[in-house]
């Protein structure tokens, strides 16, 4: 009787990872992680120890003083709060708008539906810098600068979410709509009670991406929220830097980077399970 009776893998995702693949993966993961670990190590060193010698990051002693410095800043929690309001607001807004529009484009009939969809997709080609100044003028005319709506609204116009949700809605069997129609459900009710719950994985994914983009956005908050009590975390942390911070405040700078990333890491970890699953419909 042969000793090795393991089933060979003929379907992808079965069987053992070959050693060569594993080594390549480990190397690639090291390349991915090394800069991140380096950043964390730097953030754990005092600024003074790093001046002119970033190699000191590899040696003891480590300290949390940079994080304390961030946390004891007057306004850090205000900025954190602003960022949360803006990111959560944008995320909710995008989910609502894109779910509605995705359902509309995927399921309903109205004049110029296809044309409008293509028109929306064109938006993927519009660079932020191409519209930021007219946008700024527009928001000035509407008196929206230095306000939460002013920070949230531009994040709602992105076409990717509409594309994503439309594809996802299209993948849901039409039977369900029809069954609900026969069950006497109104269009809104079909959308709300039948289809929307089925898009939860997609909502999670789009939500993560939107939250991430909103959290990291820099240029718009920079020129729209000019009052420090309206800064988002990215802008606030940038304002807290001295010129030449890369030399004399390196540890602090890196601690800021880590600090600003923690919330999104948390969001990612919470929702990552849904991400791959829900992308399945996108590439159709």
């Amino acid at each position, binding site marked *: 009787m042969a000793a090795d009776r393991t089933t060979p893998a003929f379907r992808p995702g079965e069987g053992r990872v070959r050693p060569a693949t594993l080594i390549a993966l480990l190397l690639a993961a090291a390349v991915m992680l090394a800069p991140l670990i380096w950043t964390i190590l730097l953030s754990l060193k005092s600024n003074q120890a790093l001046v002119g*010698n970033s190699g000191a990051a590899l040696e003891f002693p480590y300290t949390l003083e940079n994080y304390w410095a961030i946390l004891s800043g*007057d*306004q850090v929690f205000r900025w954190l709060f602003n960022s949360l309001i803006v990111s959560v607001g944008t995320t909710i807004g995008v989910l609502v708008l894109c779910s509605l529009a995705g359902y509309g484009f995927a399921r309903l009939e109205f004049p110029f539906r296809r044309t409008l969809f293509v028109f929306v997709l064109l938006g993927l080609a519009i660079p932020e810098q191409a519209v930021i100044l007219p946008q*700024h003028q527009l928001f*000035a005319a509407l008196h929206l600068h230095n306000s939460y709506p002013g920070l949230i609204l531009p994040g709602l116009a992105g076409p990717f979410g509409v594309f994503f949700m439309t594809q996802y809605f299209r993948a849901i069997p039409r039977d369900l709509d029809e069954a609900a129609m026969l069950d006497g459900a109104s269009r809104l009710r079909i959308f709300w009670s039948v289809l929307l719950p089925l898009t939860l994985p997609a909502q999670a994914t789009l939500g993560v991406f939107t939250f991430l983009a909103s959290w990291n956005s820099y240029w718009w908050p920079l020129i729209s929220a*000019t009052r420090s009590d309206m800064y988002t975390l990215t802008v*606030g942390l940038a*304002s807290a830097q001295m010129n030449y911070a890369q*030399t004399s405040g390196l540890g602090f700078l890196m601690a800021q980077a880590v600090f600003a990333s923690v919330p999104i890491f948390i969001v990612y970890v919470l929702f990552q399970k849904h991400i791959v699953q829900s992308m399945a419909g996108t590439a159709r």
Partner: protein
Amino acid sequence: GSSGGADDGKIYLQRFFGECGAAYGTATDVAAAKGECGIITSMINKFNAENAGAPVSSNVVAWPGYPQLSAQFAAGDPPDIVSMHGGVISDYAARGLLEPVEPYLEAAGLKPDQFTDASRMAATVDNRLYGLPWDTHGGLYHINTKLFAQAGLMRDGKPMLPRSAEELLAHARQFKARTGKPYLLQSLVADTAAQTRTLYTYLMAQDAVIFPDPLHIKLQTPEARRVVNYFKALTQEGLGTLDQDTPAAIAAFLSGEGGIYPTGTWMIDQFQQDAITPGRPLHGSYAVYPYPRLWGKHAEFVSGHVWVVPKRERTPAQRAMIARFFKFMTAHNLDWARTGHLPAVRSVIESAAFKAMPHRAEIAPLATIGHPLPGYVQRQSAIERLVGEEVGAAITGQKTVDQALADGERRVNELLAELPVVSPSSPPRRSASSRP
């Protein structure tokens, strides 16, 4: 949203220099503060403590803050006092966005000639003063005296500075030969200011006219060619570094990897910290001087920080408060000098207290030999980038010197030719709508 308040005299101050509420959030002891951020924060705290109702509300912006300021102007809601580099004033002044500050100085009992020439010129456009002069900053040779000694370039405990171009080359070769390290640490990567500073400085030294009129630059001149060719040759010979950006160059200087790091006044404090810290490579071996005279006369391109007053409707109480604040700031000019920048007030620079600070005697001449660009030149920061990019390309050998200078001249002239023709007195497009 509005940054304006009622008629209680509150004023909004917007500045860069970083945020350090952690260490200085409530500090009012200006003398005890350190660093640009610490000193300015304590100063404002102190002013607020001394005046009823903490009238100054400050807003820290990410360096350099001009996109935000422009945005605020465009939205019709600028602050009351803004930190600004001298070279930028002409842009806003030409658009009629700034108030001349003579009335405020007068109200504060200050006279323009209390300020040094260099600092006053930096704030002057069309013979009007557009801000409270605050300091003068310019390029300096930060020197590692230990390496200089090793290279045999010390005399009487002081580094030997070249007195001509030929001498600098000789020193550099000798330095390289004896220490094996570059003589000059240059930040040529992602930093255009350093190159421009060098070029402007040595053109001024040769009495070359850089901007014959508001719409033209002249770079295709023998003087310019001389300067660029010289630094190119030096760099190509390996006497100056090629691959460093600013943080890398600073790090190299701090770890004793080169003889001279030409950069601004703002680094004195940081380097001095290392110089007095035992165990640091720079310990006890730091000296600093203005750029040496290489050609012509001893002159240097400088700039300065200025506090400007954007044009908008203000109550008399607010105006009074601005004047009061200016007066207070001027009184604390010496404290600011601890950052390394040259104070703007003549009496301070001449004071014993100032001269007693490390290296200050050596750099004091900047106040007299320093010249900013003429006030009629707009878009100085954009021009600085263009010129720096071309000079950098020439020094690193990516372009021929002639080509680089020709390109630089053409690009700057094209930029200037596009300036919209506006009279300086025309009002901003949106008036201060949010103020009563």
